[in-house]
């Protein structure tokens, strides 16, 4: 009875209205699924985000005010007010911001609004990385050698010496690569500690740092879990996330090229056991280090992960839909057999050489299409990329029958993607997936340091020819237009100037 099912889905949604306590592509991601489920959505927004896609595409929008996260997306009071004002009966926290804040989960509970994430206790115990390591240890999950407690600056040098260099400094409240530093010898230890603490304080409001041994040729492999309120816990395979720079993931793929079925099953079981131990509900990710055929618990992220689409495309599942269903008390749908291979590339607004953030206005945008390509992004032509928020503009995800085909598809999609107005990490990703190391599948978290920084000589030749051609075309155009054109056209040209504009401006007026 398709009519009945569709009607029911519209007439009796599990929730009436979901408030999304987030911004950017993840807010849009949640809006898309909610809209498909016939559930209304409430966007919240800072001053800077008045024109953002999540505001324009939600069915409702509530202004929070301010530009700093602390005045808007991190302000629990304002967000709870927005819930009340808009009549939302559920909240999706996205990732970052309040997604792993147990006080927010408690505030939602107290207000009778369903928090689409795990119970506060699970957030609390997994959010404290030191505590999480203790719980994992008790559950029999192997750990990387390190100190399972936060350390002060005075004990730092002694502790690092005891574990042995290189060591990693990590924020106890951390996540998303913030507040992490690798230190190779005692010289840089104090400054790294200070920077990491400051970053941790700024990102999480908690500057506690712990130490871990930095293992050899580590790979970062994580397990996607999902739990319902009836005690069922499942996992949807793994994601390989070793392509990182500054401890921020740049490329993720699934399956991981080096994982045996046995190891996958062991890791999956360990992840599910851990989720059960803490009474988990909803979507979560258990991160492991993989090194020389062994795996070690890193941390559990008690939220939807940025890279969740990699899993969605392989398993044909909508993880946001499952989060909402589970939140409404429904049982988990069975996990389908995975199909093919998927890869995600994060598109960050940053200089491809220096990795510094690149700000500006997106004046032109060409997005890839065709088979097996997905773009999750809140970009639009005219978007101002501001310094207030994360530099990630979106995520490009591909799916194909096997790994070589998926790599070829990603290469094709990255070439189709054109963003003008800010520099992006896309060209670095393109060079990475074309590198012999990535193609072989035998890579580790150091891969980006080994990727060629510049384009190949043939490409440079081509680019010089094209640059000369651009000047030639501009000069010809300027010559042809010099009689007909007024200054009018040039005056309104965007930052990415019309060819020939510079030429015209250089000609004497009159």
């Amino acid at each position, binding site marked *: 009875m398709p009519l009945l099912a569709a009607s029911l889905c519209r007439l009796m949604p599990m929730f009436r209205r979901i408030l999304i306590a987030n911004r950017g592509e993840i807010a849009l991601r949640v809006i898309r699924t909610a809209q498909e489920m016939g559930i209304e959505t409430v966007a919240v927004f800072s001053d800077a985000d008045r024109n953002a896609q999540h505001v324009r595409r939600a069915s409702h929008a509530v202004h929070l005010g301010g530009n700093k996260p602390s005045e808007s997306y991190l302000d629990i009071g304002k967000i709870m007010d927005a819930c009340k004002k808009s009549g939302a009966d559920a909240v999706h926290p996205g990732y970052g911001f309040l997604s792993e804040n147990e006080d927010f989960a408690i505030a939602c509970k107290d207000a009778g609004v369903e928090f689409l994430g795990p119970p506060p206790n699970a957030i609390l115990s997994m959010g404290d990385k030191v505590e999480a390591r203790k719980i994992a240890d008790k559950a029999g999950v192997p750990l990387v050698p390190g100190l399972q407690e936060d350390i002060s600056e005075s004990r730092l040098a002694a502790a690092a010496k005891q574990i042995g260099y290189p060591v990693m400094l990590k924020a106890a409240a951390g996540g998303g690569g913030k507040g992490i530093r690798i230190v190779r010898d005692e010289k840089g230890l104090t400054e790294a500690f200070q920077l990491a603490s400051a970053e941790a304080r*700024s990102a999480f409001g908690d500057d506690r740092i712990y130490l871990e041994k930095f293992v050899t040729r580590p790979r970062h492999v994580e397990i996607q879990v999902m739990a319902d309120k009836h005690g069922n816990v499942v996992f949807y395979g793994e994601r390989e996330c070793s392509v990182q720079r500054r401890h921020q993931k740049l490329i993720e793929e699934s399956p991981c090229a080096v994982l045996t079925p046995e190891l996958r099953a062991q890791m999956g079981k360990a992840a599910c056991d851990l989720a059960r131990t803490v009474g988990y509900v909803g979507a979560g990710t258990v991160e492991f280090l993989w090194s020389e055929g062994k795996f070690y618990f890193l941390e559990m992220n008690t939220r939807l992960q940025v890279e969740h689409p990699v899993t969605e495309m392989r398993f044909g599942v909508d993880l946001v839909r499952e989060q909402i269903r589970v939140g409404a008390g429904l049982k988990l749908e069975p996990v389908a057999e995975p199909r093919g291979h998927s890869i995600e590339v994060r598109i960050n607004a940053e200089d491809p050489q220096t990795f510094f953030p690149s700000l500006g206005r997106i004046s032109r945008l060409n997005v890839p299409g065709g088979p097996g390509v997905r773009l999750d992004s809140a970009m639009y032509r005219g978007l101002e990329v501001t310094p207030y928020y994360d530099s990630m503009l979106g995520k490009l995800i591909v799916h194909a029958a096997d790994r070589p085909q998926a790599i070829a598809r990603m290469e094709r999609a990255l070439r189709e993607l*054109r963003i003008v107005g800010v520099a992006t990490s896309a060209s670095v990703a393109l060079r990475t997936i074309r590198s012999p190391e990535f193609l072989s599948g035998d890579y580790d978290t150091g891969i980006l340091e080994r990727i060629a920084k510049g384009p190949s000589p043939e490409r440079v030749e081509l680019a010089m020819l094209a*640059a000369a051609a651009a000047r030639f075309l501009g*000069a010809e155009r300027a010559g042809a237009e010099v009689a007909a054109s007024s200054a009018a056209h040039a005056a309104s040209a965007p930052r990415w100037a019309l060819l020939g504009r510079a030429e015209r401006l250089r000609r004497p007026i009159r």
Partner: protein
Amino acid sequence: MKYYCKFEGQERDYTFVRRDNRLLCTSGDRSYEMDLSLVGDGALFSMLVDGRSYDVLADVQREKVALQMVGERFVVHVEDDRERAAHAAAGHKSSGKRELRAAMPGIVVAIKAAVGDVVEEGQTLVVLEAMKMQNPLGSESAGTITRVLVKTGEAVAGGALLMEME
């Protein structure tokens, strides 16, 4: 018309000639049959080189040509004959003073040196926070700080002058 291109130490020159409805380009002893066509508002053009096709996004800012093509970004310096002659006549100027500029827009969260300090190459002078990352900005060479132009907590634009040294 002849253009002189520079990219990361490499140099090439290209001469374009239209003849009998054809566009020829020569560079050294090589020559190409070209077909160029502006697309849309003209920031984009289609370039056929001996039948090979390239889709080029170009931002021409006088002699600085920023390109997006074949999945890469390039900034190529291009001079025409007149510009080359003008530059040759003008010669080059250089300054002994060195500057520390903000590599990106952000908020100054720490200033690690004061006027008069003698600093080493690579020493962190300022920490900038941008997009939630702490970015240490180091000195490009050893020297003495002569001016500090920013305060902690101040928001600065990309390229803003932060310190001067000698």
